C-alpha cells in the first residue's frame, strides 16, 4: 500500500530541530572546529532535511513501493539479464568479517578477502576460457574501457603505435563506440547482413595495420550467434589486431561455449548480469576483465596474486595503469563469488540452455502477433519489430506502457537501432513456464487491444503510480534539484 501522505520529497518533511541520529558524547570538546581559520570554513548554512528516524524509514519504504524489481515480477529487459538475485548472496556480502576492512590495511589481516578475490578471478578464467582476470573495473562500460586500454598497451609494448582504430559492428550497443572514444581510439563501423550477423565481406577491406582490434558481442544484440566468429577472429588476428568480447550477452554461453575458445583475446563480464548480483537501480555492478595468455602483465594495478600460501596485491610496471582506487566493487565481487559457489559446476552448465529455451519459447509463441524480422533459433534474447498489425498506429512504446498495467516490466524498446519499432525480450533461466505463459497471454491480449481499443493502449499505463510523463518539458527546461523545484512553485 502506498500512503499518499508520504508522496513528498524528504525536504518537505523537514522540521527545524528534529534529528535522526545519535552519536556518543564528545569527551574531547576542548578541541573545537571553531579554532580553524574562518576563511577555510563553510559560509552558507547547510540546508539538509531535519527528520526523525521513523519518518525517514516510512519515507523511503513508501518510495520503494513505487518501484518494480525482479522480486516484484517478470522483468524481460533485453540485454540486461535481469535474473534472480539470490538472498544468500546478500547475507554473505554483509558478513561482519569483511565489511569493516580498510582497503589499505596490512595484507596479513585481509588474507580471507584476498583469497575470495583470487578464487573468483580463477573461476571467471575457467568459465570464459581465458588466462587471467582483474576484478577492478566497476561496471560493464568501465570493463570495456579497461579492455581497450589493455589492447592499446599491448600494441604499444611492441612499439606498434600506428594502431589507433577499432572495428565495431553497426548493431553494437552505444557503449562500445563511446568506450573507444574515451580510450582515444577511432571507430570504424562494420555492417551487418540481413540476418543480423557481421558481414565478413564488409569486414575484410577494413582490416589493415591501423586496426588495434575489433569489439564484438556474441550472441549479438539481436540474440543471434555470430557463426562466422572463427573466421572473423582469424582475419583480425592475421591483420595484427586483437579480438574484444563484450560480455553483455554471456549468459546464454554458460555451459555451452567459452569466449576464449572462440578466438577472443580480451573480454569483460558484467557480474550484475551473468553472475546474479543485483542491479541496484543502475549500480553498483562490476565489470571484470579477462585476457588471453601473454596479455596478463597489461591488466590494471593493483592485481591480486598468490605467492605460496599467501595472497598479495602487486603493482606491475607493464600494466596499463589504474582504473579504480582500490580493487573494484568488493561487495559485488562477494555476491558473485557466493553465486558461483552456490550454482557449482553441475548447475552452471544448465544456465545457458534454459535461458535460451525460455527466449525461444516466447519468440515462437508470439511471432504470429509480433513482427519477427530475423527468424531461426535465437539465443538468450530476440527482437520483435513492433506489432505485426500496425494499422491502428499503436507503437512499441504503447505496447511497453500497456505491459506495465498488467504487472510486467517492459522489454528493452527502440534498441537495437536496426529496426524502427524494436522490442527486445530477454527472459533469463529463472523464469518458469507458467510465468512465460502469463506474459505470452498478456502480449497477445495487448495485440488484440491494439486493434480493438487503440486509444486505450496509446494512453497506457492506467494503473501505475504515475502516468506517462512529459519528458520533452523535462529536457527543454531541466529542473534537477529541490532548490530549482521550489522556484518553480
Amino acid at each position, binding site marked *: 500500500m502506498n500512503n499518499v501522505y508520504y508522496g513528498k520529497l524528504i525536504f518537505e518533511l523537514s522540521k527545524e530541530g528534529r534529528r535522526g541520529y545519535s552519536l556518543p558524547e564528545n569527551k574531547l570538546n576542548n578541541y*573545537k572546529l571553531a579554532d580553524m581559520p574562518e576563511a577555510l570554513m563553510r559560509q552558507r548554512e547547510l540546508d539538509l532535511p531535519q527528520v526523525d528516524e521513523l519518518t525517514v524509514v516510512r519515507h523511503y519504504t513508501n518510495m520503494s513501493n513505487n518501484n518494480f524489481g525482479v522480486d516484484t515480477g517478470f522483468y524481460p529487459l533485453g540485454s540486461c539479464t535481469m535474473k534472480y538475485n539470490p538472498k544468500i548472496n546478500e547475507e554473505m556480502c554483509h558478513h561482519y568479517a569483511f565489511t569493516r576492512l580498510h582497503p589499505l590495511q596490512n595484507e596479513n589481516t585481509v588474507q580471507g578477502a584476498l583469497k575470495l578475490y583470487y578464487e573468483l578471478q580463477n573461476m571467471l578464467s575457467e568459465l570464459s576460457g581465458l588466462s587471467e582476470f582483474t576484478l577492478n573495473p566497476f561496471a560493464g562500460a568501465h570493463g570495456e574501457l579497461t579492455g581497450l586500454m589493455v589492447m592499446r598497451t599491448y600494441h604499444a609494448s611492441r612499439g606498434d603505435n600506428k594502431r589507433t582504430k577499432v572495428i565495431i559492428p553497426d548493431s553494437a550497443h552505444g557503449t562500445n563506440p563511446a568506450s573507444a572514444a574515451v580510450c582515444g581510439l577511432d571507430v570504424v563501423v562494420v555492417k551487418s547482413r540481413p540476418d543480423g550477423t557481421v558481414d565478413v565481406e564488409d569486414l575484410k577491406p577494413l582490416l589493415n595495420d591501423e586496426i588495434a582490434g575489433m569489439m564484438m558481442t556474441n550472441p549479438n544484440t539481436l540474440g543471434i550467434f555470430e557463426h562466422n566468429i572463427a573466421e572473423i577472429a582469424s582475419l583480425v588476428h592475421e591483420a595484427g589486431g586483437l579480438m574484444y568480447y563484450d560480455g553483455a550477452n554471456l549468459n546464454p554461453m554458460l555451459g555451452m561455449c567459452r569466449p576464449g575458445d572462440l578466438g577472443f583475446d580480451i573480454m569483460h563480464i558484467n557480474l550484475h548480469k551473468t553472475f546474479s548480483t543485483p542491479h541496484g537501480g543502475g549500480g553498483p555492478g562490476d565489470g571484470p576483465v579477462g585476457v588471453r595468455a601473454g596479455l596478463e602483465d597489461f591488466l590494471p594495478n593493483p592485481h591480486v596474486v598468490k605467492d605460496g600460501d599467501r595472497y598479495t596485491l602487486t603493482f606491475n610496471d607493464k600494466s596499463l595503469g589504474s582504473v579504480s582506487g582500490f580493487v573494484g566493487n568488493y561487495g559485488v565481487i562477494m555476491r558473485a563469488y557466493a553465486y558461483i559457489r552456490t550454482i557449482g559446476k553441475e548447475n552452471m552448465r544448465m544456465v545457458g540452455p534454459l535461458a535460451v529455451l525460455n527466449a525461444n519459447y516466447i519468440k515462437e509463441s508470439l511471432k504470429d502477433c509480433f513482427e519477427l524480422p530475423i527468424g531461426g533459433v535465437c539465443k538468450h534474447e530476440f527482437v520483435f519489430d513492433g506489432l505485426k498489425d500496425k494499422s491502428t498506429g499503436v507503437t512499441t512504446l504503447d505496447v511497453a506502457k500497456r505491459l506495465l498495467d498488467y504487472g510486467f516490466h517492459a522489454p528493452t524498446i527502440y534498441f537495437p537501432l536496426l529496426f524502427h519499432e524494436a522490442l527486445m525480450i530477454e527472459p533469463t533461466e529463472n523464469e518458469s513456464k507458467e510465468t512465460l505463459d502469463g506474459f505470452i497471454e498478456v502480449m497477445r491480449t495487448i495485440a488484440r487491444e491494439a486493434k480493438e481499443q487503440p486509444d486505450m493502449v496509446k494512453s497506457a499505463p492506467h494503473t501505475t503510480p504515475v502516468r506517462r510523463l512529459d519528458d520533452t518539458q523535462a529536457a527543454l527546461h531541466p529542473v534537477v534539484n529541490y532548490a530549482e523545484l521550489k522556484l518553480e512553485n
Partner: protein
Amino acid sequence: MSYKFFPHTDDDIRSMLSTCGERSLEDLYKDIPNELVLHRDYDIPEALSEIELRKCFDQLGAMNTSLACFIGAGCYDHYSPSVIDSILSRSEFLTSYTPYQAEISQGTLQYIFEYQSMMTELTGMEVSNASMYDGCTATAEAMMMAVANAKKRNKVLVSETINPIVLRVVDTYAKFHGIEVERIAAKDGVTCRADFEAKIAKGDVAGVIVAAPNFYGIVEDYTGWADLCHDNKALFIMNCNASSLGVLKTPAEWGADIAVGDGQSLGIPMNFGGPFVGYLCTSKKLIRKMPGRIVGATKDMDGKRTFVLTLQAREQHIRREKATSNICSNQSLMALYVTIYMALMGKQGLREVNEMSYSNAHYLADKLLETGKFEMAYPGKPFLHEFAVKVKGDIDALQQGMLDKAQAQFGLKLDGDTLLLCATETLSKEEIDNAVKVCNSLL
C-alpha cells in the same frame, strides 16, 4: 534434474522444446559450430548448500582481522546508521534496474532527485549528476570534461597534493584519452602557488585540479585560484572529501567550476574498498558536458509531480562515440545510501561528525607529540581529521606492533619516516589513549 534456481520440470522442457520445434536443449545451439562448443564440465567447485556456503564465508572471514582504524587515505571509517542497510535491502530498490520505465520507477527516480538536491546543497554547486563509480573515476571524468569544454586545449594541471590513489587513475585516463597532465609542485605539504601561477599563465591549460582537504589532511587556502583559472579560460576543479563539506568552505565558495570526489565518507562502510559512490557537481552552463545520468522533475498526464531521466541525448546509447562519456550506469544504490545518510544526519549531524573527528584527530596528534617520538610533518598547517607525522623510529615495526598489541591499523606509511594518520568519530578517547600508550611502548 532439479535445482532451486531453475523452475523447469522435465515435462516443461519437453513441452517448450516442442513449441520451438526442437528435440533437445543441445539443438538450440545447433547454429554454433561443434568445434566451438564446450564438451566438458567446467573445472570449478561443486555446488554448495546454504549451510556449506555460510561455513565457507566463515572460514574466509576467519582469515581477516577487523582493526581499530587510524587510517584514511581516501577511505574513512565513519558511523553508518542501521536504518540505511535496512532500507537498501528492500528488493524494490535492490533488484530494479536503471529507471527507463518512469511510471514504475518513481522510487529510484525520486531518491536520485533527492541525492542530486543534497549533493548540490553540500557542494553549493548548481547541478549534480545521478552519481558515478567512485571518487577517482569521477575526477578523471571531470578532467575529460574540462578538455571537452576547452575544445582546442588538452593540458590539465594537477596538484601534487592530491591523493596518489586518485592521481594514478587520472594519469591512466589521461594517457589513453590524449590529455597532457602536468603536476603543480607541492611545498610544505600544500600546493605551490608560484608554480601554479607560472603554469596557468601559459594560457594553454583546460583545467586545474586540486584537493580539499589534500592527501596530507591539510585544508589548503585556494583564495584567488578560481579567478586565475577563469582569467586563463581554464576550469577550476576541486576534489573534496564529501563529509568535510558539512563544515569546510564549499567548492562553490572557492569559485570552482566542477566539484568531484568520493561519497564514501558519508557513512558508507569501508568494505575493503567498495562499492563506494563518486559525485560530480557543476554549474548549470556546463550541464550538457556533464557525464552520467541526470534526473529531472516534470509532470505526468494528470499533472502530478514526477521524476524522469533527462538530457539523455548526451549519453552513449544515443551519441555513441560522440557522447560526453562512456558511462551507462550510475552507482544508484550507493547514491541512495548517502541520501539516507544525509537525511538522517542533517546539518547538525554532519557538523557533529566533523566536530568529533576534528577533536579526536587533534587530541591524537597532541598526545603523540607529547611522547616526544613524533613530530608534525607540516607544522602549523590546519587539518580536519587526517595528518602526517614524522616518526622517530622504525615505522614498519611500529605498525606491526600496533597490529599485534592494539589490534589497530596505525596509519599509512608514506615515504621514509612519514606516517599518515586519521581519526574519525568512531574512535573513543579510551581507544586513542590506549593506542598512544602502546605506541610509546613500541618506540
